[in-house]
């Protein structure tokens, strides 16, 4: 199943949760936030949040700027 992760097409397994997709970025959850299709999903819901084909996932963290 294909989703978009931070603007890049990404193949994930059927039934993968948001937790697993965030983890695929290779860093802990600390200091990160995730939104799916423009909606913020609190970290507490990541393990139970099932993604659908075509979902747009954005994972943001603090960066230098502003």
């Amino acid at each position, binding site marked *: 199943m294909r989703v978009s992760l931070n603007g890049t097409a990404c193949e994930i397994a059927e039934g993968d949760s948001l937790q697993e997709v965030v983890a695929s970025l*290779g*860093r802990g959850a600390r200091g*990160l936030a995730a939104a799916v299709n423009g909606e913020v999903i609190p970290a507490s819901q990541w393990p139970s949040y099932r993604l659908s084909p075509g979902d747009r996932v954005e994972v*943001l963290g603090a960066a230098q700027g502003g």
Partner: protein
Amino acid sequence: MTDLLAIAGLKLSSRLILGTGGAPSLEVLDQAVESSGTEMVTVAMRRVDPGTEGSLLDVLARRGVRVLPNTAGCYTAADAVLTARMAREALGTDLVKLEVIGDDRTLLPDPVELLDAAEILVADGFAVLPYTNDDPILARRLEQTGCAAVMPLGSPIGTGLGIRNPHNIALIVESVSIPVVLDAGIGTASDAAQAMELGCDAVLVASAITRAREPALMGSAIADAVRAGRAARQAGRIPRRYWARASTSDDGRAEF
């Protein structure tokens, strides 16, 4: 004497807020944080780099400074609101420096989108610190919306052109009762002193420090300027006069 900056429910002893943009490395940023004595540092929200752990946050945590997330790079109220909500989730703070810009040449705020975003975020429980134009009327509207402060620009972001319209900054200081933080345009220490002399409660500086040849030295120079400008404001400057006025009395003057 304690002269604390009361902003968004916080009490800070430094009136210099540091921006993190432009620093060539985290080491340089760390030195700038230390030398400036800042207690609040603003960070942007960006897509995470796979594999890199949050070392920026580690640097800031080690220095014990408060993190002020911003919505840099947002062009619409909708994007800014979503970015602020993600920042709250990621960093566990209701503070947000709200930035909604109108184009990428001037990076000037889009006042219509800014006000829309401010209304939504205030209603959502955020302490909103909007980066705004040097417009006293807009500043008042933002205050009425419930913003925790207003952050008018001195000149466009990154230009270092100083305060182009000091009279408007003075008018904003007179127009609102929330803190006024001069944001953007500061090029060097004297600009920061001028902002404080005009009655601003604090200044936010990024490029002038992070892109200086010696960022740590400029950090301490601007911190000194902020303190000097604040003291001068409180001391009360003399009125400007057209003609000279002797400081020495004519009494007892010799007649040769």
